[in-house]
């Protein structure tokens, strides 16, 4: 079977248009406790939307809804052009091949090595040769700079390394949409910056759309003000006075409703007391 380089996979979808994710009046409750109450927003192609809100405000539930892991009580959700609210689990499993998710605590399979974790999706598909899978695994691990951990088990890795392996596992097939659930939660500032850099790299190199849940506003502001420089292979801040706009937007949820949906400048200039308190 001919092999397709990862960058070419990313390039093939660069031409697709229209929103990647659309939530329309989504309602969700757990055991009669309302979590989301008429949430509507959309994520366009190549955009990274950062979700904010206090703990328990339903941010992680939005990611699980977008992946079809849970179903809304009302409303409509479109992902990659498909209305997933009415899709069967088998149809969703096929659609999830085009989506990558990084879970809050990494959710690596602790009985498997890093190699098998990262290769999991490719091995399940069974379409590629072992040599090609090995090459892809090493490529994904080198993206997160963890090639040397390939034979280790998740228990032998630090929290930050586990997050990076989770990113490698999610991007190995170069999905069109990435869902990050608190990727920097509980990490030290240096490791957090490494993770943010990887997210920016994925956004700028592969133009992947993303929904990102975070508790750290500074991470999202970093993403909104930094780009990945392919020449230096590092994240750099936009020069002062630059008119280049980075595709990062913010969504703030309060009491199950969206109270803000806009870019960094709009967020910084918001007059809403709650938002001002949140960003201060």
């Amino acid at each position, binding site marked *: 079977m001919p092999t397709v380089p990862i960058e070419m996979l990313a390039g093939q979808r660069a031409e697709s248009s229209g929103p990647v994710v659309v939530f329309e009046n989504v309602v969700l409750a757990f055991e009669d406790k309302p979590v989301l109450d008429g949430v509507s927003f959309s994520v366009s192609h190549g955009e990274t939307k950062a979700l904010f809100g206090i703990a328990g405000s339903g941010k992680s539930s939005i990611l*699980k809804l977008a*992946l079809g*892991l849970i179903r809304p009580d009302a409303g409509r959700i479109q992902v990659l052009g498909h209305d997933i609210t009415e899709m069967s*689990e*088998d149809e969703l*499993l*096929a659609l*999830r*091949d085009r*989506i*990558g*998710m990084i*879970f*809050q*605590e990494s*959710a*690596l*399979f*602790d009985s498997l090595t890093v190699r098998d974790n990262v290769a*999991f*999706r490719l091995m*399940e*598909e*069974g379409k590629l040769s072992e040599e090609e899978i090995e090459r892809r695994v090493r490529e994904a691990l080198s993206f997160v700079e963890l090639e040397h951990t390939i034979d280790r088990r998740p228990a032998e890795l630090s929290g930050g390394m586990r997050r990076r392996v989770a990113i490698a*596992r999610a991007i190995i097939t170069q999905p069109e949409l990435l869902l990050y659930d608190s990727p920097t939660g509980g990490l030290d500032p240096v490791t957090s910056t490494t993770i943010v850099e990887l997210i920016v790299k994925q956004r700028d190199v592969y133009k992947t759309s993303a929904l990102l849940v975070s508790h750290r506003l500074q991470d999202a502001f970093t993403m909104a003000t930094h780009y990945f420089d392919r020449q230096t292979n590092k994240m750099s801040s936009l020069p002062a006075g630059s008119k280049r706009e980075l595709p990062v937007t913010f969504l703030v949820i309060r009491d199950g409703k969206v109270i803000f949906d806009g870019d960094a400048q709009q967020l910084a200039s918001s007059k809403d007391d709650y938002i001002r308190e949140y960003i201060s």
Partner: protein
Amino acid sequence: MAAGDFLSNVELISPSEFAKGKILAVQNYVLLCGQAMANLFRRPLYGADIIQQADFIGWGSISIIVLAGFFTGAVLAQNSASTLERFGSVSLIGQLVSVGMVRQLGPVITGLMVAGRNASGIASELGSMKVTEQIDAMRALGTDPTKKLVTPRVVATVIMLFFLTIIADLFGIVGGSMVAILMLGLDSHQYWTSSWQVLQNADVITGLIQPVFYGFVISTIGCYYGMTAKGGTQGVGRGTTQAVVVSSVLIVVIDFFLTRVLSIVLVYR
């Protein structure tokens, strides 16, 4: 803690809510069983996972099955001896042990042993995966967890329990022979001949149909409590305990009804 504090922390559930919860649990269990069975006809079949589980469940349980079978047969012979002596029928002890082990005790003891070892193992393993979001991660990676995790465990448990029961039966009769020959002074040839000759096809069929049901119950109950675990490590522990208790009780209940049905269908003795 004062009694008042304790009572104020107790959450009272209305009988209708309690009943609804139980019915929902049964419904979800039946759905899981249906999915596990339906997966047998859908690809991929995960042969390597089935073999891995069979090794863990089968080979890993052999030592406890050999010991449990051997001593069950020995105790059966020892306890029956005093009763049979009263009627001067100690020579029938081989028949009694053989029929008792093959028709009832072998399958039930094996089922209970494997339930204790593997229903708990399955529930705790899957429960840990559930509470650490590994099951969700599997779904997110496009793999059906019931196909990858549940069906291989069900197939492996059913197949291995069948063979473990045969081993338990054999070692039960060996255990009975040790008591009969060494303690009661019976002739070895007589014991083994009577043990063999008394067995009818119906006894063997009854004894070998049961482990298929027990294996299914042990694995599906273990998987159900694992896949529905919630509430962190405490929830996993609770689910593990429930898996052992429920599967053990179900084995005894199914034993009663299945034996009744099979005795009617096979019309023996």
